[in-house]
């Protein structure tokens, strides 16, 4: 997997993705979703509750497997790879931001940000690079406005601060794609707005690809491209403003 970012090239592709859950009977959630995601693109996916947005995001992040179809990362199929490859993909190529932040309560803000690196590196390698990594985490926390909260536990942070920490954590491995699942869904409107702005700024600064799943259409409309997931199928919207829209919206 190459980490060279070429603006506009397709880095992530979903091809005819189906996802069926079995709860007594078959519950189809995704019914043949096709999507090309371009490098550096800000893509939003909207849809009502239960429409399958989060499921689709999990499939793109290899947390879930499609019942049918395939996911490609930089042209290579990723969804059927062994766990080791998918673990590395989640650790280094994509960054997750969740609605409920999911910070580990035992760790400080700084340690939570360093967590992906702790998972990636062995103890010796980590200790060898500790000062460099710690500085990197501090810089990220400073970037999200939490330089003064380095050693606080999550329980001592506000909702907005926790989400900022989660954003900093998602960036520590310098991923190419950020997968944000309702990042403002658990915050008040003002804080949510600030988080959205922060995400957008960071995306631009780092030339990141951002896939934002939300039910807030007003936020989603500010993306380069907004897609709507309805009845398990993706549909494009009027915000398709990407310069080279190689989108296949079935």
């Amino acid at each position: 997997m190459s980490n060279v970012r070429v603006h506009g090239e397709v880095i992530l592709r979903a091809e005819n993705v189906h996802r069926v859950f079995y709860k007594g009977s078959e519950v189809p959630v995704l019914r043949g979703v096709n999507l090309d995601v371009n490098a550096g693109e800000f893509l939003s996916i909207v849809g009502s509750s239960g429409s399958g947005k989060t499921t689709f995001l999990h499939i793109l992040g290899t947390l879930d497997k499609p019942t049918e179809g395939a996911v490609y990362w930089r042209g290579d199929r990723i969804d059927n790879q062994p766990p080791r490859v998918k673990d590395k993909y989640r650790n280094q190529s994509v960054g997750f931001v969740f609605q409920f932040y999911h910070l580990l309560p035992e760790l400080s803000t700084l340690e939570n940000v360093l967590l992906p690196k702790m998972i990636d590196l062995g103890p010796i390698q980590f200790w060898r690079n500790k000062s460099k990594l710690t500085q990197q985490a501090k810089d990220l926390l400073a970037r999200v406005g939490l330089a003064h909260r380095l050693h606080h536990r999550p329980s001592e942070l506000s909702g907005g601060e926790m989400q900022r920490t989660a954003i900093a954590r998602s960036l520590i491995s310098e991923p190419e794609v950020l997968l944000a699942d309702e990042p403002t869904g658990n915050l008040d409107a003002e804080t949510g707005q600030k988080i959205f702005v922060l995400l957008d700024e960071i995306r631009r600064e780092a030339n990141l690809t951002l896939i934002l799943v939300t039910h807030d259409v007003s936020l989603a409309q500010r993306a380069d491209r907004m897609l709507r997931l309805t009845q398990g199928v993706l549909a494009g919207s009027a915000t398709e403003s990407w310069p080279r829209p190689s989108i296949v919206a079935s």
Partner: protein
Amino acid sequence: MYIFKLCGRYMTTRKIALASVISILLGVATLIVVNSVMTGFRTKMRERLHGILSDVVVESRSPLSGFPEPDVIMKRIKATCGDRVVGMTPAIETVGLLSYKPKGYSANPLTREVQIVGIDPKGRCEVGDFRSHLLDKENQADPSFKLRSNALAWREMNPDLIDSKEEWPGTILGYQIATFRSHGMQSDEYLIYPGHEVIITTVANGDGGRPEPASYKFIVTDLYRSDMSEYDQRYMFVPLEALQKVCGMQGRANTIQIKLRHESDAPAVVAALRTMLPPQFFMVSTWEEKQGPLLQAVKVEAFLMNLVLFFIIAVAGFGILSTFAMMVIEKTRDIGLLKALGASHRGVMGLFLAYGLALGMIGAFCGAAFGILFTIYLNPIEAVLTQWTGYEIFPRDIYYFDEIPILLDPLNVVWVVIGSLLIAVAAAVFPARRASRLNPVETLRYE
């Protein structure tokens, strides 16, 4: 790296896990203390038993008549076993009754049953610790049945209790035959002193091999203290020639004690002698076989004690299991997050196993330290507890030891620590597997 970091944090933040640590600590400490005492007791007992008996014992199947020409048999034994044998001595062992008049207690003689052993003192010293068990220092230097200065002095002071008309052979009496200690007494009271005259009545080999009663007078020349009450309460030693005469066994013996160069040769020597000596007349056994039931009983007791005590650690293991099972439920969301951030199944499992190992290590190492310290200071602790409670925790007169015998075996400590670590890790396996198999999608929905 995250495994170490999170493990460390769980150790410091999850106080409930300390209950498991304390259970392991107590289990390990108890096992070490009990094992040290049991091993000390067993070792001391083996030393004493072995000191009394030689490495190999040849016995006649007919103790009353014994076997003729023990010197010839010993020569054959030497020829068969060669350099493996470093000492041999013949003896006669028989039962009898001992009668004596205790000074100041009773006008009538007192009688008790005894095991009478006819020996050559010097030969006996060659095959066992006989010398070191003698109380008279002069006798220790040159073991014999001669009257020593102590005994002679006593006889001069007690002319009413002696019969100086004849020269009687000497006898060395078991310490507990000659003394007693009633409840509450701080020291032993003497019933029989060296110099005292005693009469033994035993069974002699009569005409036609018929058992006949026979009595003879002996003068106590010394006392024998092996600290094994079984021996000190029953054994009295007399010159072999005297007992041969009393029992009508002139030129005969019924036992040969054999000392080997290396004790480990005993099974081979026994096997060779069993082939050489006709089994219908002779029994050949090692000292351990002779004391088999007693040694086996102590061994079984130690094993059962270990088994029961290990259950304490097993209970601690179940404590870890239940703590971890609850923790996996509580940490479901965090486990999902770790997987979302790239942690492998193995990594998540390793986290919980490492946590179990860490709890086990703290419990086991602290328990080992506590157990070792407690063992080292067991006797002072026992003294303090006895003083505080007024109840004698280790009654010396029952166990016949001056202090609680202790033998701290480092290998034993290592095994106990390893065993408890294995239990701690094994207890963590099930919850750890469960954690590693959690579906991150499901777990991240938890809120």
